[in-house]
């Protein structure tokens, strides 16, 4: 083992950033390898959905984590990079760190795979995604919420009068073999809907769901509020029909009347779920970690190999932060570094910053 120990953290989303900060605060050297050009992963692309108060999604914590990790003296952030040619040694691993411009040999005493997730590709479903411009994913809605124009129809840039959210797209799906709830989508959809309503109260919003999942500490109270401002329909339409220029038609079975019901919407948001990220199995295999039947990773494999965050299975931002801290603790337990460093406050949970 090197002194101080070196840890390879794969993925600089909120999970990887959190784990890297904890490890670096404990005096370890961290190589944080991110395949994308920017850190923060999916969560960095989320919009703040506060209306008159914070809605506790945790997305703002990602910005703090990026700042702390980027400035941390013991974290080396490698963007647009990946690992190759991994070889186990007595003490840990050697590997080649490959970026767009360079390749270098490197070593680590332990590895933490925090590679995150991919979003389910809704082109695999007959919702017209990719065909009808006004059928968007939840992540695309986040981009609209962050944009200066706010939530508008991609087709013509005007605000939608009637919005439909379709939950569980790609999740809880036996035919696909996706026997999991993606955990974040009910909260994301309802918070986004509330933000759209706050900006334009005349917008009519309908949420098509199977089972509404709780989110936040006091969901019972929040649920009453959401039911007053949004329409909830139990049962998710299986397909959509573009009705010329009139909008997008959805057909569903109304529970109360047992009749088929048909309505037109201007904007359809598909709450696409989490799936194991492409290449996860391959990357994990390099370190001797085999995915479970779901395709997500177990928490640990051979000695010195750990996984955290959505790479292990769907979880929300606060859950990912907790899981990454737990994984970092297990890395520390495995490596038992000398407790020589007593760094000042910098970890993602505490910030005292003055310009």
């Amino acid at each position, binding site marked *: 083992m090197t002194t101080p120990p070196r840890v390879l953290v794969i993925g600089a989303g909120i999970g990887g950033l959190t784990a890297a900060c904890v490890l670096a605060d404990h005096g370890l050297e961290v190589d944080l390898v991110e395949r994308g050009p920017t850190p923060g992963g999916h969560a960095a692309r989320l*919009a703040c959905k506060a209306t*008159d108060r914070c809605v506790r999604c945790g997305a703002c914590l990602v910005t703090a984590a990026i700042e702390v990790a980027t400035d941390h003296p013991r974290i080396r952030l490698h963007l647009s990079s990946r690992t190759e040619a991994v070889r186990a040694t007595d003490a840990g691993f050697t590997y080649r760190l490959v970026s767009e411009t360079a390749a270098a040999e490197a070593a680590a005493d332990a590895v933490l795979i925090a590679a995150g997730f991919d979003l389910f590709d809704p082109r695999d479903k007959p919702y017209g995604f990719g065909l009808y411009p006004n059928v968007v994913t939840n992540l695309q809605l986040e981009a609209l919420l962050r944009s200066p124009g706010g939530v508008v129809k991609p087709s013509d840039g005007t605000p939608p009068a009637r919005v439909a959210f379709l939950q569980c797209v790609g999740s*809880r799906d036996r035919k696909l073999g996706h026997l999991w709830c993606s955990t974040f989508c009910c909260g994301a959809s309802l918070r986004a809907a509330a933000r759209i309503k706050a900006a334009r109260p005349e917008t009519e919003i309908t949420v098509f769901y199977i089972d509404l*999942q*709780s989110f936040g*500490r006091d969901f019972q109270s929040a649920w009453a509020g959401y039911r007053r401002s949004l329409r909830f329909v139990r049962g998710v339409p299986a397909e959509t029909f573009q009705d010329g220029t009139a909008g997008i038609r959805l057909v569903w079975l109304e529970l109360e009347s047992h009749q088929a019901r048909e309505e037109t919407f201007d904007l359809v948001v598909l709450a696409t779920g989490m799936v194991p990220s492409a290449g996860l199995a391959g990357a994990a295999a390099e370190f001797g970690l085999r995915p479970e039947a779901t395709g997500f990773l177990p928490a640990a494999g051979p000695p010195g190999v750990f996984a955290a965050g959505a790479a292990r299975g769907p979880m929300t931002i*606060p859950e990912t932060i907790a899981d990454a801290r737990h994984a970092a603790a297990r890395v520390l337990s495995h490596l038992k570094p000398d407790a020589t460093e*007593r760094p000042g406050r910098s970890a993602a949970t505490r910030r005292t910053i003055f*310009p």
Partner: protein
Amino acid sequence: MTHPVCIFGTPADSREIVDVFLEQGRRVLLVPGPDAEAALARDGRRAAGLEVLAPARLLACGGGPGEFDLTFTAADAVVRRRVSALVLAHRPERHPHYASYGLRPAPAVLPAARLVEMDCRPPAGTAWNEVAILNGLQSESSPRATGELLQIALRLRREMRARCHLFTRNLKVAADGLEALARDARTAGVVFHKFTHSAPVIRQDEDGRAHFAFTDEITGLELRLAPDLVVVDEAFEPPAVVRELARTLELETDAAGFPQADNVHRLPVFTNRRGVLIAGAALPCGAAGAADASHLLLALRPESNPTAAQIDPGRCVRCLTCYRVCPYRAVSLAHRPEVQPAACEGCGICRAECPRQAIRIPGLEPADIRGLIAAERPASGRRPRLTVFACARSGGPAVRSAAAAGTSWEAQVTVVEVPCAGSLSRDFIHSAFDLGADGVLVLTCHDENCHSRTGNRLARSRVAQTQAFLDGCGLTGRLVLRTTAANMPAETGRTLAELAAQLTATEPGPVPGPAD
């Protein structure tokens, strides 16, 4: 040697945490509560490093992180202990939802906790052939409760072929393995009755047997059930001993009374007091077991604090304002108010509120602020001049992201980042105008997102007071406050642009700048 960690919890509640702490070489003082049996103190494991103090009630907590001075009443004596940190590990109490279902407890109507205690086995001479499980039929359930009830249903199906009916509104499966577990339950023959716009009618006989009448929402069939057993779900609430600890320790609580505010900055195991932690198992939806212990151990790591507030004893008049306003309970009262450096977050609220300006925080002195504003101003005389006071957790990163994305404002913008908007005293704002600002923008975190909980609200009231003063001077519209978040660069950029446009249209500010 560091002092022991004090863990409040019964031996059963805290077993995993205590084991992990002892393994990691931490000494533990276990306090099961004022109702615990004295025998625990004698029989409790005398493992190296473990002391059990029972029965005991916490009277007071002085000192600070690393060196808390705890005073207990234990059997009629007063006992004092010095500990490095406190962990609240009492598990929530489970309150069966009898009343909301119109049921009363009976041999045939049991709470889920009781089923677990009974290992899902009926008492001798009783058969559970038909079972109804109520899971979130009135108030919403949770993944933890749903997992437990699904396991109960599976046991009853597999071991005694009981016909199991699970009644629910929204099936909570947002946790690892629950969707698969629900599918397994269906495959094993558990029948799910989901209610959306209707509810079963439930009545109970004198002998305690419950009767259900309901309409299946999908088929429209009217069904009746008179099960041998009804399993009732439970609400999770903090036990009385935890409510008392929260009061004694001056901890923020959430709406249900758990000693952790509903604030993203407190997750997973933090409270508003450094060194006082809440175990995940003590929260309805927190992590349990080894993960829990990990978080707690990580959080115990001591850190130095160069930015702690210092009270000048020469100026202090012991009004105790700082003691009352400190969100982190970092001011202790011995002979006079003193800031515990290890507990101080450097938020600056005490400094801003002190009526005698008796509190210093390195880097947050009026001279420091004036220096920052003056240093940022080029001598070019570009107008309008906008000074932005931004919370370093929200406004600061948002403005920086907006600037990095290439947003430019038709103004000369000076950004002063502060650790919390609550540190903004009126003299900071006046300094900005003194140094030639045409307008001042204060950016705080959203309500209920503030790390100190009160900082943004204090900033809002201070800004309102200053606005009233400026209005009186004929300087309306020059001081604006907005809430924002670190991931709102577009909106924050727009706020600056709008204010800059507004100021361009008005006359220059009250004080000319150097190039004027």
